[in-house]
């Protein structure tokens, strides 16, 4: 245990236990079809913990060796899931043998991070555009395969991971900015205020970075063009096409109109007030007002039953964990280890942000689990494996020093 980051480990254990208790409460405390999944979750946590310990013993060399093969294996699994996957709730995301089910997208997330880290570590930053293009190619294949499952949430996590890793690997900030901003423009184009805010930010950032004239023209021009075209292109679609796209992107799309999921989740969290309704005491939860309450919306059960204090503690725990993980990345001597560490860290951080943001009504609803806490075998095990790999990087860093 000498070479473990003990605070990070304790935080992970705490988060997993919170998860077990909340999954138990979310499933057993429900009036209709109450099947207690708490024990189930505990078993998965134990399995994940064993894998975490095993992976923490792994050598850096093996990770480098396994980077591309694991990436190819993940792609294969993603293809297989498209043809032979099991479907739950309108999405084909699972590969199953008997009662055992695996979510290849969770595996692909880690594998893609490995492959990206391996590739980026070899680049020396003198050809940023070439580096970015190849990195984009590496990510785009699993991204596309995950999107069509569909599992937009998990796929989206890959984007900040890629950008963050490239930045960590030395790709100039301005180059990344030039690529990212037009994409943001597409997303923001649906609201004039948001889009205008984005444009002001873009101009300020470019000025601050002392961007050249042509970069100024290209970045702003791209933003304006995409910003103008998107609503127009969207408007040309027929209603059923829009619906189809929206439902495709988000199968759990509000069955009752006017943001039912979001509203119910907000009511659940808000009604918890300072100290919450107590474990097993959530009423929103108990009466199934919360959609996917033991998986994607577990954080609203936390908010409802443990109150502001409990939810804030959970957020602080995540903060401590991520703070420590950034520390691991910062102290790595090996480029590969550092880039891999920051990639895995950003992966976890993004999931926390998207999931909590969705639960609290800050971000649109995309199905994505809360790391360590949400119910789900592959995701819990994958999260713990990520921690194991990060721990191994820490040990490897010490070895190399």
């Amino acid at each position, binding site marked *: 245990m000498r070479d473990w980051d003990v605070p990070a480990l304790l935080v992970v254990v705490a988060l997993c236990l919170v998860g077990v208790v909340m999954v138990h409460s979310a499933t057993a405390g429900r*009036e209709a079809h109450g099947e207690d999944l708490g024990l189930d979750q505990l078993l998965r946590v134990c399995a994940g913990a064993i894998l975490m310990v095993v992976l923490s013993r792994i050598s850096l060399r093996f990770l480098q060796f396994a980077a591309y093969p694991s990436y190819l294996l993940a792609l294969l699994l993603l293809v297989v899931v498209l043809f032979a996957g099991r479907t739950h709730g309108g999405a084909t995301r699972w590969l199953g043998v008997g009662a055992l089910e695996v979510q290849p997208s969770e595996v692909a997330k880690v594998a893609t991070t490995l492959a990206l880290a391996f590739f980026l570590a070899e680049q020396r930053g003198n050809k940023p555009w070439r580096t970015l293009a190849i990195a984009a190619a590496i990510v785009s294949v699993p991204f596309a395969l995950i999107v069509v499952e569909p599992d937009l949430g998990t796929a989206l996590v890959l984007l900040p991971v890629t950008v963050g890793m490239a930045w960590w*690997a030395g790709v100039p900030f301005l180059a990344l900015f030039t690529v990212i901003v037009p994409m943001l423009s597409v997303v923001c184009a649906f609201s004039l205020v948001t889009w205008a805010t984005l444009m002001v930010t873009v101009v300020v950032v470019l000025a601050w970075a002392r961007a050249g004239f042509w970069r100024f023209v290209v970045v702003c021009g791209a933003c304006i063009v995409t910003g103008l075209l998107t609503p127009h292109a969207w408007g040309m679609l027929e209603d059923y096409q829009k619906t189809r796209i929206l439902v495709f992107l988000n199968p759990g799309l509000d069955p009752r109109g006017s943001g039912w999921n979001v509203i119910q989740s*907000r009511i659940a969290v*808000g*009604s918890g007030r300072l100290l919450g309704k107590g474990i097993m005491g959530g009423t929103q939860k108990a009466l199934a*007002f919360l959609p996917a309450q033991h998986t994607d919306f577990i954080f609203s059960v936390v908010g409802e039953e443990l109150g502001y204090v409990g939810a804030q503690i959970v*957020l602080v725990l995540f903060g401590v964990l991520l703070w420590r993980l950034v520390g691991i990345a910062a102290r790595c001597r090996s480029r590969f280890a550092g880039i891999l560490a920051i990639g895995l860290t950003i992966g976890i951080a993004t999931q926390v942000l998207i999931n909590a943001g969705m639960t609290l009504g800050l971000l649109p609803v995309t199905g994505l689990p809360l790391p360590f806490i949400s119910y789900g075998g592959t995701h819990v095990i994958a999260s713990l494996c990520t921690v194991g790999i990060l721990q191994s990087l820490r040990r490897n860093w010490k070895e190399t020093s």
Partner: protein
Amino acid sequence: MHPGVAGYDRDIRPAAARAVLLVVLVLLSARLFYLQILQGAHYLELADSNRVRLSIIKAPRGLMYDRSGRIVAQDRAASTIVLDPSYGADSTNVSMVAELLGMSVQEAWRKIGVAQRRRDDCTLDPDATFATVSRIEERRDILRGTARRLSLRRRYPAGAAVGNLVGYIAEVSEKELNPDSPYRMGDLIGRSGLERQYESVLRGERGFEFIQVDAAGRELGPVPERSAIAPIPGHDLRLSIDQNLQTLAWDLIGPDRQGAVVALDPRRGDVLALVSRPSFDPNVLGSGMGHAVWAQLNSDSLFPLLNRPIQCAYPPGSTFKIATAAAALAEGVIQPSDRKTCTGAFLFGGRPFGCWKKTGHGSVDLRKAIVESCDVYFYQVGLAIGLERLSRWAHVFGFGEPTGIDLVNERSGLFPTVDWFNTTYGRGRWSRGTVVNLAIGQGEVLATPLQIAQFVGAIGNDGVMFAPRIAMESRDPVTGRRTVLADPKGRRLPLSPQTIALLKDAMAGVTEDPHGTAGRSRIPGVVMGGKTGTAQNPHGEDHAWFVGYAPADHPIIVACAFVERGGHGSSEAAPVASGVIKAWLITCGVLPEEESGDA
């Protein structure tokens, strides 16, 4: 210093990453703080209303018993299908529910619209059949916001025989659902008859139950920590009606005739039977399809919705001669022994007024004039007393005045006064001769069967007249406490005992004397006093009247039968009334049970 990064003196990347992390965490924490601390109370309220639905427990409506405890009106359990518009008001769901209920989608949406404006549950089917309930229950998992509630429907064992008497109940209309109204959509309200008259007594007060619902609006059962507020059941009513007598009277009129029967206990004013025919089946009108049936009844040319004994006023014909005789004796304008000659007609103002007996009655005194119903005698009595005095007495006897029976929409009939003629026809535009006709109950005079029964009953009761009443007492089903609704209210008519004795003797003669007009309706074993009447009807066949009471010296029942366009009172109406009287005398033990044979 990281080898891969050029241009930085220090590696700022970890600090930048941590800064971003902090910003994100602070943002999420601020949101948590806003939702849970600043807006917590608001969301708690939302969460409560989210899971709790106030469900109404309808109060059972009071029962109605007849005077010997037979059920006249009673609630029975029924299934109501309701839809909560906040869960189920989308087109697929509504069309699915409508199809299962066998109603049109437009009709379903109309009802939902009303409910939405009231922020109320929508009652789609107030009395669902077992098959409908099964269909709904089978699809419970697909349907949203749809629930089956147990409710209570009204049952009237005697059916149409009590139709106009009890009236009917129907769903409260949208117009009546103003914000102050104690009613809610789907509530039932008395629409006519006793159900309407005693609505506030019978209704009770609804209770509430706090029901947990899940996200699809399915009810999961009561909220444990909030106990239900029990409904207060409506009070029961005990009626003076004898349901057997009521049904007998209904049968005696028969399905092919229109008419009315009123039977009273003249000693107290108890209404023993109040029959109108044709009528309606209150069981059908109170059901979900009531509206269509009502529309059909309302356009029926025989007016089944009219409660004839209190709502139809007709010329009373010769039954009114008792009133004329009483008034003339009280005024002293005739002496019982005065004799007049009937030649079959009477000339007044150059116009002949005929007697019903074209050959004439010969020499007639008062008793004979009543027994044989001589018109010519009473023409002259009318002239002698004059319009002013006759009309004043008629009003004293209750004509042209409401009897005050406890039923809605009673008509008061008419006995014209001098003023009435002056305003209706104009001063000097009417003849003093009208009183000739009025004296025999023809012309402008209109009376309800109830008024005739009340007046003649008062004569039989030695001059004490009681206001008729149906509901005797109410009973709180919870405490068992009884409340007398109205004490018998009697008043003595200003007639001398000699006058009353004379009239009673004459009315006994109507059935007992060989020439009495109702001789054929004599009841063996008891003397019945009575008077026939045949009212001329300018629109067709004459209306037949008979009013009688028995036993003649101290009557316990007075019955008035009226047959619309029936013809002669003696042949059409008298058997109905005497049949009712006889049955009641048997019930009361005054007459022995009928020997078997021709029953």
